[in-house]
């Protein structure tokens, strides 16, 4: 219960002030946070099938722990809302009932589904929160990959599609226009929870922290003392010795999509877990995409969208998003094309040019 915990902390602070402070009215005013954070602490938490970590500047380990716990409580709360592994989650309830009729839900869940559907509309369905059925057909949900038959694929195709999710904002309801449609927060949920964590940490007056959701979505609050921001390295998929780029983040987020952790190999062919909803097949021609955006929900959805769209359509999408930047590494298994959009690397120069001539390509829309 984050609220209860926050209250408890306030109470503890009040008691402290009441006992040691000059006035009995110390509780009436907003407790003040201690002066400049002295040390950096790392705290981790397992949730949503991954590991969340927070690097945090705080005067004491105790204070760092209290604040980080508040953020992790928020992760657990959102997981209980959106996990499709948990039958008890609100998203699971919608998945069970929305084919039977409109399911009225809470504001937060409704807004989350609406945002997700908004990304589908914006990307022409490249991003699709109903892709779970397709991933199941390819055996990704329980980690036993196989190539589905044409009939299985057709079946999965009938059970997915963002247009089959019908929202009514008046009554906050979700309805599915077909049987067996299923919402899967995989491509956007981690970004959403990171935004909630950032909100929580800012409420706790945290001014310098780095949040990582399994390293695929990262958010930087402020900067370490005396620095411009938090450094994040984007790995070179072909050279693990050195990063392809290092960026400095401050009050913004970065998300990466790649096939390096989840895929299966059959007859020498590598099948990626990121699906193209139009072809009903895994994406074949993209290696890694990274997006930077002030909203972690947006950077998460955006990196997934760019992965499916490919360089051309991605450029078009990014044109309409002036606050976003991106780095796309395209190719069949190997990186063949590098595309960067508003990408600023403090090491200077053109990241794609510096990396390798054969991948050279840079566009500034």
């Amino acid at each position, binding site marked *: 219960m984050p609220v209860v915990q926050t209250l408890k902390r306030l109470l503890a602070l009040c008691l402290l002030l009441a006992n040691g402070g000059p006035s009995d009215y110390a509780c009436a005013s907003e407790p003040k946070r201690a002066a400049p954070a002295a040390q950096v*602490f790392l705290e981790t938490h397992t*949730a949503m*099938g991954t590991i969340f970590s927070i690097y945090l500047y705080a005067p004491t380990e105790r204070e760092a722990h209290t604040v*980080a716990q508040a953020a992790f409580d928020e992760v657990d709360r959102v997981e209980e809302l959106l996990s499709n592994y948990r039958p008890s989650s609100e998203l699971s309830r919608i998945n069970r009932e929305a084919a039977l009729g409109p399911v009225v839900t809470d504001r937060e869940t409704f807004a989350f589904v609406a945002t997700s559907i908004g990304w589908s509309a914006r990307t022409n369905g490249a991003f699709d929160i109903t892709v779970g059925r397709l991933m199941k057909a390819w055996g990704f949900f329980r980690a036993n990959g196989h190539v589905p038959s044409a009939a299985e694929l057709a079946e999965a195709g009938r059970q997915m599609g963002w247009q089959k999710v019908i929202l009514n904002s008046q009554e906050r309801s979700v309805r599915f226009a077909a049987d067996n449609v299923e919402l899967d927060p995989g491509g956007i949920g981690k970004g959403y929870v990171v935004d909630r964590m950032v909100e929580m940490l800012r409420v706790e007056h945290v001014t310098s922290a780095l949040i990582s959701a399994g390293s695929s979505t990262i958010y930087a609050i402020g900067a370490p003392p005396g620095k411009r921001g938090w450094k994040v*390295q984007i790995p070179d998929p072909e050279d693990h010795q050195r990063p392809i780029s*290092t960026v400095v983040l401050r009050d913004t987020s970065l998300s990466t999509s790649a096939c390096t*952790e989840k895929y299966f190999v059959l007859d020498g062919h590598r099948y990626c877990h990121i699906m193209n909803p139009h072809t009903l097949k895994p994406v074949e021609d993209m290696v890694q995409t990274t997006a930077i955006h002030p909203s972690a929900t947006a950077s998460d959805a955006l990196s997934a969208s760019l992965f499916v769209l490919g360089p051309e359509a991605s450029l078009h999408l990014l044109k309409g998003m002036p606050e976003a930047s991106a780095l796309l590494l395209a190719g069949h298994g190997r990186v063949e094309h590098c595309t960067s959009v508003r990408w600023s690397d403090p090491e200077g120069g053109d990241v794609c040019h510096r990396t390798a001539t054969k991948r050279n390509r840079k566009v500034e829309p």
Partner: protein
Amino acid sequence: MNRRDFLGGASASVLASGMLPLLAQDREKNVSPDDTFSVGVIGPGSRGQELIRQLLRIRGVRIAAVCDIYEPRFAEVDQLAGSPVPRYKDYRHMLERKDLDAIVVATPLYLHAEHVNAALNSGRAVYGEKSMGFTPEDSLSILRTVSETGKIFQVGHQYRYAPWFQDAVQRVRDLQIGKVTQIVAYWNRNADWRRPVPEPKDERLINWRLYREYSGGLLTELGSHHIDVANWVLGEQPIDVIGVGSIAVYHDGREVDDNVQVIFGYSEGRRMTFTSMTSNSLMGEQLWIYGTSGSLQLTLEDATFYYEPRPIHAVNPHSEMMQHGVTTGASFRAQGEMPYRGPGTRLATASGDDPTLVACRSFVDCVRGKKQPLADVQIGYAAAIAAACANRSIQSGRKEIIPPAPAAG
């Protein structure tokens, strides 16, 4: 806890306890070849024969007499010993012998007190199998006889002698997993617990453990070992117990439960749960000790420590991350969402010898050197009384208070 501490072999506590297996020739160099140690065995059945086998691995030990009421045992013992061993049908006649240094009692539970008390009163040191006594009165009488005769008594709780138990329990007592408040023990099998009976008339003699007149069932036969470990870890015997049991699978005329679930209460609200079933073997035999900062899994083969996640720690400002940043990447993990427990750290305690051999060897050493055994009568009492009271609770359906051992003297 530093990982090297684990891999560095036996801990200082084991070295200090003198239990580290020494080379046989070092240990026995003071034993002259004609310094024979004559043992008489009452009840050379399955366990009694195992003890004979182990005793014969100790220099100077000779099986000088056996007593049993089941004829086929004598030939089995002769076979084990390699020559005919003088046999007795009545233990009193065997105890009249003047050349026996020690007596092993491995008869069915209901006979332990009668046989142990008689052997002690005949002036011999005794190795008595667990559970020490069947009823609370039985255990009390053995306690009194040991104190009155001043003779050496060792109880068959051989895990007290297992190096990995000693090492692990010492680490727990040194607070390496924090404050221990809960112990959960499983002893599960998938077998009917019956032994073949060549002649139907011998059913109750051979399958004595299935009948309440002779046996305390799963609690005394299996549970007493785990209760002893809990007593050891928690440093006392339990105060009370509440339990249930039933015959759920084997409706074959047996009287003892084929599954039991029992909770023992210790001081300060600490608890030990023992559960045993005979119709599923998944959990096997394992005992979990839960502390505020970690857990220990003890089995008949090993000891493994797990530590509670301690998620927060200070970061070195000159670390790789602070200098060069974190690395982003795809993080989609296929793993489930269970809390991360990690692979655990298995104790690498120098071992090798069977705990029963170590226990037998230690017994012989104690008798020869007139020293008090580690698994003494108090240890035997504490486990036996708890097992007996647990069975009372199962029968009465109520919580039972476990009487502490009367003050010595």
